[in-house]
């Protein structure tokens, strides 16, 4: 089977070279050159000196953080509730099913729901609250993004909750823990791997939801993802676009390092 290894390896290596390494090298190359292909750090200088870019970066980070946080807030209890239901497979499927509807269709639905005479404003109208402009606000963007990402947070948390041996919960209760103590000291730490992969699955895509910022956030919400799209497809300044892209990659690496950091335990002398 030895010579066959090359047969399997070659096409795969070709793929890695062409679609993983080459694009990375190219985007890095573009970020380090100007429009005339001269080597320069000017793009990065522009990014870190201008307030606009830094504010944009902070904004993206903040939005992604909020989206991830609200997702976790909604999804964790839902996943926990799911572990106590009968027919869990069925209910889980109902949670997953909306992910099969194209993201843009769901975003499009909110254009109707959030419009000045849409469902939400009709509902508010019942209480005499006049039409509120919800579209093209931070709220609308964060709400829709959270809505879209919820299933991707419920899934990993549910899976990690299911892996907890029920005997551990009995053991905790046996040792005198109340429901909340069991949650805090046993369930939460043991489900952390699921929370972690949920955060990774949501935080990073949230940085690049440019279609949502365009459709729901109007041009008021500008994230790094929106900027990349704008520089590449509208203003055609690929060098600046690539620079923002490289910074996005760096942010992503930081998030991954932060969430997968191992905790150090202090030693106890007896």
């Amino acid at each position: 089977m030895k010579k066959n290894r090359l047969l399997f390896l070659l096409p795969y290596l070709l793929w890695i070279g062409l679609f993983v390494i080459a694009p990375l090298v190219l985007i890095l190359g573009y970020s380090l050159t100007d429009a005339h292909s001269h080597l320069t750090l000017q793009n990065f200088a522009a990014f870190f000196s201008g307030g606009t870019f830094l504010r944009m970066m902070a904004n993206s980070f903040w939005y992604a953080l909020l989206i991830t946080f609200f997702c976790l807030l909604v999804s964790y209890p839902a996943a926990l509730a799911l572990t106590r239901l009968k027919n869990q497979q069925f209910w889980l499927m109902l949670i997953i099913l909306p992910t099969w509807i194209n993201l843009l269709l769901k975003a499009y639905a909110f254009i109707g729901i959030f419009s000045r005479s849409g469902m939400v404003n009709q509902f508010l109208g019942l209480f005499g609250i006049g039409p509120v402009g919800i579209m093209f606000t931070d709220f609308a963007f964060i709400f829709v993004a959270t809505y879209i990402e919820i299933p991707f947070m419920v899934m990993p948390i549910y899976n990690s909750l299911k892996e907890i041996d029920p005997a551990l919960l009995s053991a905790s209760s046996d040792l005198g823990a109340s429901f909340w103590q069991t949650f805090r000291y046993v369930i939460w730490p043991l489900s952390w791997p699921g929370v972690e992969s949920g955060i990774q699955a949501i935080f990073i895509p949230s940085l690049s939801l440019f279609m949502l910022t365009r459709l729901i956030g109007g041009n008021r919400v500008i994230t790094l993802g929106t900027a990349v799209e704008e520089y590449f497809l509208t203003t055609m300044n690929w060098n600046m676009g690539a620079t923002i892209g490289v910074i996005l990659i760096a942010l992503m690496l930081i998030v991954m390092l932060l969430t997968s950091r191992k905790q150090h335990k202090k030693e106890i002398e007896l």
Partner: protein
Amino acid sequence: MEIIKLDHITKQYDDGFVALKDINLELESGKFYSLLGPSGSGKTTILRIIAGFTEASAGKVYFDGQDITNLDASKRHINTVFQNYALFPHLNVYENVAFALKLRRRPESEIREKVKDALHTVRLDGYANREISELSGGQQQRVAIARAIINEPKVLLLDECLSALDKRLRKEMQFELRAIQKKLGITFIFVTHDQEEALAMSDEIFVLNDGEIQQSGSPVDIYDEPVNDFVARFIGDSNILSGRMIRDFAVEFAGKDFECADAGITPGEKVEVVLRPEDLDITAPAAGKLMVTVQSQLFMGDHFKIKAIGQDGFEWLIHSTNGVQIGQEVGIFFDPEDIHVMRLGETEEEFDARLETYEGED
């Protein structure tokens, strides 16, 4: 002094399965009890009801004279060593053992002192900073015990907790569990399907089957005088023959009449006779009470297990310190006290009552 009392406990699950039928038992403090039975016999259900993980369908649970039937598991002064130990994988040995004390926000110095003592009791000094995943099965077992005794419970429940260990370690832990129980002086309730384990460690054994207590008593009582053929078969190896009572102290089986030590049974009544394989001695054909032909034998290290066919076709199991020739005709010999006669369908109470009537005469 009575510490645990189960009063007419029944348990029926939602799907209609009856796990326990009218269980009554009283346990004294400071003793080692075993609940022994095959899987599905209800022994673990009893344990879970005492611990508070499962609610009984009817009946009451008393602890130290107080009704705790509706008390939450977290509020009972009873702790459990779980079947697969249920150690918290995200905590190390120290944190696992200290768990109950941390919940009660005891001062750090007290926690350290107690954890140290508990680890010493289970002979795990110096293991405090180990991760659970680094421990062997036997060590995990000890951590589970240390964690359960840290709260100084009056009753410790042990759920099949030796079954995951290999045979050698299991034997070792049997001695150790018994030693820990003696040292702490608290009540142990040990659930097991392994009769050897129960016989080796317990002060008293409850044999369960189909959600009912079949027999309770000291290991010796249960082994020597099983109340029915379930208990006889479940505990130890046995030869069970059908027979007929001739009169008091005389029984007929295998086509012959024998002197025995049982009485109080109507003459002519059909009975079952139990003979333990180690009570049977192999003799020359003429010297034996019965004649058998050796079919096969297994060497077990300290004895031989011999299978032999009697003249009536019954297959005998005999334990012997000396080997025999396959196909050889031998005699088997036993004393009247080795014969144990069981009445069909006799309950434990009836058995005890009958024993009263003639044992006084000796």
